[in-house]
């Protein structure tokens, strides 16, 4: 059940038998249903989560407006430490499952054990974090591109199956109105 995380790590760095054994013994699976709010669940569990399958939306509510910050697909990481960063006037970060999701949960106590007992853990965690930073930098660049069509095109090149994302959330993420997104999509399909 935790094989997807092990496979993902192995693709980046050789893993010791000890590493694999610790993951198999101490990590566990969490399944959430589509539309479920994951915020409290993740906040209350002092852990790192690997999304094995599904899609999660990260958002905040600001002055009655729902602002989508990120879409997390397979092989993405989340951490309960995420909630320690305060965004805007104490507005809370929220997480919503857009599909049925399966998460591999790794308690922070397990992460500490891995770092202490398995020398390759430092590299593995660094690789995962670097991948996340790269995604954030891409988002950062994307949201600053002034042309709506260009933003949509670039998003499509980065996110392989945007049909999984409801239009209103995608519009919010791309910083445009739903009507603009519809127009941009139609124009893109025509071309």
């Amino acid at each position, binding site marked *: 059940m935790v094989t997807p995380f092990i496979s993902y790590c192995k693709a980046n760095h050789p893993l010791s038998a000890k590493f694999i054994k610790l993951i198999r013994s101490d990590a566990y699976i969490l399944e959430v249903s589509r539309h479920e709010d994951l915020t409290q669940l993740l906040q209350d569990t002092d852990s790192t989560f690997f999304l094995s399958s599904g899609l999660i939306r990260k958002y905040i509510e*600001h002055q009655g*407006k729902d*602002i*989508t*910050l*990120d879409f997390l697909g397979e092989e993405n990481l989340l951490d309960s430490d995420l909630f320690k*960063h305060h*965004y*805007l006037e104490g507005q809370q970060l929220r997480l919503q499952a857009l599909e049925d999701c399966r998460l591999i949960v790794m308690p922070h106590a397990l992460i500490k054990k891995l770092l202490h007992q398995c*020398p390759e853990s*430092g*590299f593995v*965690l*660094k*690789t995962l*974090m*670097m991948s*996340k*930073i*790269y995604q*954030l*930098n891409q*988002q*950062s*660049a994307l*949201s*600053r*591109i*002034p*042309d709506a069509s*260009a933003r949509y095109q670039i998003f499509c090149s980065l996110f392989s199956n945007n049909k999984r994302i409801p239009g209103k959330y995608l519009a919010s*993420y791309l*910083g445009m109105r739903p009507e603009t997104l519809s127009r941009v999509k139609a124009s893109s399909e025509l071309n």
Partner: protein
Amino acid sequence: MNLKNEFGDNKWDNFGGISPLIAVFKSFHTLNPEIEQIINEQTFPVAFAKGKHLASPLKRNRYIFLIIKGAVHGYIKAGNQKITTWIAADNELAGSIRNLWKEVDSDEYIESIEPVLAIAVPHSMSRYLYEHFSIANYVGRKMTEIYYQGASERAFIARLPTAAKRYERFLVTYHHLLDRVPLKYIASFLAMRLETLSRIRSAAAKINTK
């Protein structure tokens, strides 16, 4: 980008005899003499005039830079437009972290927006330290967390729904840049036109004088 030490054996004379990077590392963890020696030997000061490129997609960047004095911005090109995605100034690190670990191309440019004095930190040295010293491994992870928080903030600020809110957030997290970075770069960073930024600043100034 092929840089070299222009200052010879006296490279640290103006820095108290040691690389300033050592103090940065020590803020996370004590270091051993071997690590300090490697840092002293392999890092070196570099100077860039205003408007010079520290890195570009044409020349694969092999360094991170510790900015001692000055400011730089990272930008991408959208058509003919420069889109500023980050800004760094004194005592901050600048550079594309992605090709620290992978030999990959980057579409990012890094340009000085003031004259810059920086310490060039070779990727090869960072990799060596990370692979051979658990202390450096720990420091590297802590620095990566800082990068992560910075990247999260930059991604977040651009998504705030109004230009006014983005500027308000900028004042909270980047106010130290306000009086030294040209407004055109701040406007680009905040995903607004220069005219919009000027209007917001004028309105804010009027409120403050009342």
